[in-house]
């Protein structure tokens, strides 16, 4: 655990340093953050868990796919597990590319694929004290046509 999956609060700066590149004219940063409602129900916090070794392998593969499929120069993905407060980032995706179109497309691909291929689960904790795992989507094995993202 560490490079792709971590229990520590996520930090953007190390990812920017790691991918620093003057050959890239575009830098795309995506944050996924804990939202305060889901389907109208007030959310208090979120707990994430993962099959850690497999999730790390999938995120490593996704980074490589973004580079190969979208001509990106760099891609880094990191996902947090454990208990997160509202507004905290659960995932950060950094894509650097020569031109912006590749960066936007690669970043979108990374989060869409992550949601179908990374063995990660979230359990919402509600303001009324109840909690539940979200329904999710059946785990998909490899790259294919991404389904429309739910959120």
């Amino acid at each position, binding site marked *: 655990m560490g490079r792709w999956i971590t229990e520590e609060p996520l930090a953007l700066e190390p990812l920017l340093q790691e991918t620093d590149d003057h050959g890239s004219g575009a830098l795309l940063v995506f944050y996924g953050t804990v939202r305060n409602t889901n389907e109208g129900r007030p959310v208090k916090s979120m707990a994430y*868990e993962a099959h850690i070794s497999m999730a790390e392998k999938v995120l490593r593969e996704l980074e490589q796919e973004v580079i190969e499929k979208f001509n990106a120069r760099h891609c880094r993905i990191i996902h947090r597990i454990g208990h997160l407060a509202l507004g905290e980032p*659960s995932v950060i995706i950094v894509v650097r590319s020569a031109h912006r179109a590749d960066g936007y497309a690669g970043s979108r691909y990374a989060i869409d694929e992550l949601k179908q291929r990374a063995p990660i689960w979230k359990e919402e904790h509600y303001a009324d004290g109840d909690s539940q795992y979200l329904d999710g*989507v059946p785990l998909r094995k490899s790259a294919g046509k991404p389904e429309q993202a739910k959120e």
Partner: protein
Amino acid sequence: MKINVILYGVLKQDAGVKRHTLDLSSDPATVRAAVSELAAQIPALAARLETVAYVIDDEIVDPDTILHDGDQLALLPPVSGG
């Protein structure tokens, strides 16, 4: 033959355990046979097993995959990362 089943997410919640050891009488036994035995031993899981992915050594495997003594079979419910 003994295999170790590891449960995640809602499966872990419904079963009340993270790990469960199965003693399978048939040898060789498939993943399908192990999952069937698991559903018999922990009925609370039965309804969820249709949408589960089977994973051994970080790879998704087919239900017909042959298990070996000591294998760790992870059962992964639908995912919701991001």
